[in-house]
């Protein structure tokens, strides 16, 4: 290799790696800007939750203040707030509804997927096609009939219409079936039968443990979806006591905030609704990101 060649080769190489470095640098900068945009509203929320009304009205701050305790007592003792917002009842009700419906969703979806995957029966293909077809029908479309039917049954203002429909989750069934297709051999069922295991017990003690990854991912998504649900509770729980409302319903009552007239306390109330789920997200983010990549679950 002549000297000339060497220098040209070296230049090209330097040029190439320089280009890559430059591009990476610009991209990192852009990602940092996006990160700031993603976090800024939440950051302002947390900071303002610790500041007084007059501070917030007068300007911004990047550092927390020491008004948290005062705001806390305003949220929990002031009559205007007590009338529309009660964080602990909200947590309790949301948690009750969410835990029940998450359990029902994953258990019955796994059961349905198992039934379709393992057994051969006449309506097998048809029932699976039906499940795929109805996956896309949104709640908003059926809501007029749903509310009319529920009020006929006198089920409005109860939690049943919020919990029981979770049994039928077509999207989750689809996901579980795809998972079983790739990693649940039917020989295991045969083996269990030979050992004298009943069909339901095979499902509970063999299939469920084997499907743990899929169940975990879907449980997380079902939990988030149910926790964040505002439309259905707002539609069903029409005239209930504050003590029976869910957390999103309570937060939504803060919107007409002119009457409350204390920004610090309003920010704190919103923060109380948002922070728990962010903390949970920080711990579970790895599973969640993997789950989105796998299933493409859209609300």
């Amino acid at each position, binding site marked *: 290799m002549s000297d000339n060649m060497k220098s040209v080769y070296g230049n090209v190489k330097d040029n190439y790696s320089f280009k890559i470095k430059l591009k*990476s640098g610009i991209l990192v900068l852009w990602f940092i800007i996006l990160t700031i*945009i993603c976090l800024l509203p939440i950051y302002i929320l947390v900071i303002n939750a610790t500041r007084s009304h007059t501070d917030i009205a007068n300007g911004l701050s990047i550092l927390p203040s020491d008004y948290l305790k005062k705001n806390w007592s305003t949220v929990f003792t002031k009559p205007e707030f007590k009338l529309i917002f009660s964080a602990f009842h909200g947590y309790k009700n949301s948690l009750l509804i969410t835990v029940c419906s998450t359990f029902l969703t994953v258990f019955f979806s796994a059961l349905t997927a*198992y039934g379709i995957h393992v057994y051969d029966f006449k309506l097998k293909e048809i029932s699976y096609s039906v499940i795929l077809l109805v996956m896309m029908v949104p709640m908003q479309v*059926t809501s007029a*009939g749903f509310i*009319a039917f529920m009020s006929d049954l006198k089920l409005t203002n109860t939690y049943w219409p919020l919990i029981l429909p979770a049994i039928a989750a077509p999207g989750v069934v689809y996901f579980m079936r795809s998972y079983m297709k790739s990693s649940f051999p039917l020989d295991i069922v045969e083996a269990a039968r030979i050992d004298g295991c009943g069909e339901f017990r095979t499902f509970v003690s063999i299939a469920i443990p084997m499907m743990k990854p899929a169940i975990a991912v879907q449980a997380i998504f079902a939990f988030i979806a149910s926790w*964040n649900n505002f439309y259905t509770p707002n539609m069903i729980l029409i005239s209930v006591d504050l003590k029976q409302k869910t957390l999103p319903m309570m937060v939504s009552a803060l919107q007409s905030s002119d009457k409350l007239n204390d920004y610090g306390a309003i920010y704190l109330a919103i923060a109380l609704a948002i922070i728990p789920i962010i903390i949970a997200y920080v711990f579970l983010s790895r599973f969640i990101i993997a789950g*989105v990549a796998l299933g493409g679950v*859209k609300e």
Partner: protein
Amino acid sequence: MASGAQRRIKSISYAKYGYLFILPFFLVYFFFQMWPLINTFIVSFHGNGKNVEAWVGLQNYKDILFGGTRKVRVIHESFFQCLRNTVILWVGNFIPQLALSLSLAVWFTEAQLKIPGKGFFKIVMYLPNIITAASVAVLFLQLCGQSEQTPGAINLILYKLGIVTRDPGSKLYDCIPFIDGVWQSRIVIMFIQTWMWFGNTMIMLMSGIQGINPSLFEAASIDGASSGQVFRKITLPLLTPIMAYTLITSMIGGLQMFDIPFLYNNTGTPKDHIKTVAVMIFQYFHAQADENKMGYAGATSVLLFFITLALGLIAFYLTRDKDEIAKKKQRKKIAQQAKRESKQFGGISI
């Protein structure tokens, strides 16, 4: 391999468990979703207000789609206004969202680039998606406050940047009306929707890009293709199905847009220029007993249902299991061939 007879015996003895296992799903589905859907159709053929029991046929649809007397024209106009709002809000959030997520997905998956903390960026960008939409709406309502004495955080930032002015005498801020302004409030809602969903779309597109055979990218890089060429000639064409799927699911989601347009106001009633079809349906069946518009709510839902159904069928067609269909065709072919052969040998199979 099990022979035909064995298979038959198996199906006889275990088929009932198959039905038993899928029964709860279908029972609940019928009771809580199918029947309400049918009920929506029934309701849509009935009257409104005090006439809820009366059968009116297609009158509700006629009113909504074509208008009529002055009282009815309000509903007709309101429906098309809401439909237009829904489309505007959806288009205005989908285009920036797709551009942003597609570029991010390509950059995140490009092997040559050395970007530290990819996992961290992904986690942060997905974060807005898990926060309760209702809380997000109320939070942005606070941040976008437009009160003259006590503006929200965004107007204060703009004041610091010199865009918003303050009257020196009365000390009142000349705020940008992020809540009451027609386009200002629409832009805020588009921003919120993009903010909430771009992380999700990005991760879906990333998994799509990672599904592309890496040897294609290697070959392109050996042939000296620039990253722009790789994107246009390889990534984009091979990503079309998943992008189409994203488009359709986002459209269906956009049609249901409810929480944020419903809550983004500080009077308790949604503004006309950001009211979506879902909000309109909700208001119609939620009005006071004598003034409810159950029939109109039902008819609007049915119209929404048919739009969603058309979109859903397209998505179903795009994402069906192509391998399975090919396999089925092959199986059919083999079966036919076997039949033909068995005929050749006088019906005796060998």
